């Protein structure tokens, strides 16, 4: 077996999982991640679960029968994806409204006995926008030279920057509208409160005056 760098890295990926980052999740715990993205942006999420095995005191390679429920909400809290996947899953969606999308994962254990250990390791990888593109695949499909592929990558990146700038303009408009609304509210409610104060003051004096006159105390 040759000991070149790719081979070493490859071997290590067999020992360590493919998706780098992982975290632990409880049995009925729901973990949510927020992705603030412009519209027409593709998001690909991949996850892999490993269950803690009490007998071997280690995490099992893969667990059949263990599922994860993935729920994705758009900025208007409308559910755009709600599906049950196996212990390894891949979900993808394209945003139609710009804003904060919420990706929630929670385990849907089929057998309660599986959770004797109570710990579930979830490897997660979420790629957004131009990171979803698989360049070696695109090169093979469109038969691009290396230079053409690099330029293609730059074009994708610039497109992503453009989309983000557009989204920023939309956000700034919303922020400006919120500030204007606050300004209006502060103005009108201050005037209203001052008027209420003056009117109730006048009413109080008048009412008490007539009350004391009736009582023949004044």
């Amino acid at each position, binding site marked *: *077996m040759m000991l070149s760098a790719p081979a070493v890295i490859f071997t290590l990926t067999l020992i360590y999982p493919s998706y780098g*980052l992982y975290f632990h999740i409880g049995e009925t715990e729901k973990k949510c991640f927020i992705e603030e993205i412009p519209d027409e942006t593709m998001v690909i999420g991949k996850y892999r679960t490993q269950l803690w095995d009490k007998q071997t005191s280690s995490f099992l390679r893969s667990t059949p029968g263990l599922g994860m429920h993935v729920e994705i909400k758009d900025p208007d809290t409308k559910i755009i994806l709600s599906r049950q996947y196996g212990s390894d899953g891949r979900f993808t969606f394209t945003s139609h409204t710009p804003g904060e999308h919420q990706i929630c994962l929670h385990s849907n254990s089929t057998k309660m006995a599986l959770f004797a250990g109570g710990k579930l390791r979830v490897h997660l990888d979420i790629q957004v926008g131009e990171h979803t593109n698989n360049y070696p695949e695109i090169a093979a499909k469109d038969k691009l030279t290396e230079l053409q592929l690099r330029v293609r990558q730059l074009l994708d990146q610039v497109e992503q920057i453009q989309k983000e700038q557009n989204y920023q303009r939309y956000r700034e408009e919303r922020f400006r509208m*919120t500030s204007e609304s606050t300004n209006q*509210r502060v103005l009108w409610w201050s005037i209203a409160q001052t008027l209420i104060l003056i009117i109730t003051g006048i009413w109080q004096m008048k009412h008490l005056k007539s009350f004391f006159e009736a009582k023949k105390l004044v």
Partner: protein
Amino acid sequence: MCSVMYGSPRVLLQVLWAQLLCGWVLGSELTFELPDNAKQCFYEDIIIGTKCTLEFQVVTGGHYDVDCRLEDPDGTTLYKEMKKQYDSFTFTAAKNGTYKFCFSNEFSTFTHKTVYFDFQVGDDPPLFPNENRVTALTQMESACVSIHEALKSVIDYQTHFRLREAQGRSRAEDLNTRVAFWSIGEAIILLVVSISQVVLLRSFFSDKKTTTTRVGS
């Protein structure tokens, strides 16, 4: 998935190609909500000699601060900061193993925090998995590489700007709703207090009158 290992170098290379097509990426960027009194840890297996960067920013919540701690496989703390709003930490992995970084909101009693972090491990995967690249990059190709790096940093700045703007926007929206509720509340309190003042005053004088009339008759 990709769990077969053969001795032949050619098959190894083919499986490596397949592995790359599977989408082998080193680098994660996530935004999550950290409830009050909670701690969230993330782990990553890193090979020795890899240059890694951890960047985090608190998006919403309270004083926009969080505790962050990064530990190496032996438990030695590489980075520890309390109540930090934004920071970036670069290190080179000195050991093979699982590195752990945690965000803690345990000092807060009731504010939820939204935290963004970006953990880059090593370089981006190569565009072309050409292990047998002998010639150096041409001028065009190296120009493309530098543009790519510059655009990556533009995207990074955009992300941080977006997070700052999200912070400001969330505060502005909070302020807007609070102004509305408190103004209505204050107007109601004003009315209630002024009416009850008059009623109370009237009741003082009314009692006195009934006692005097009783004594008279």
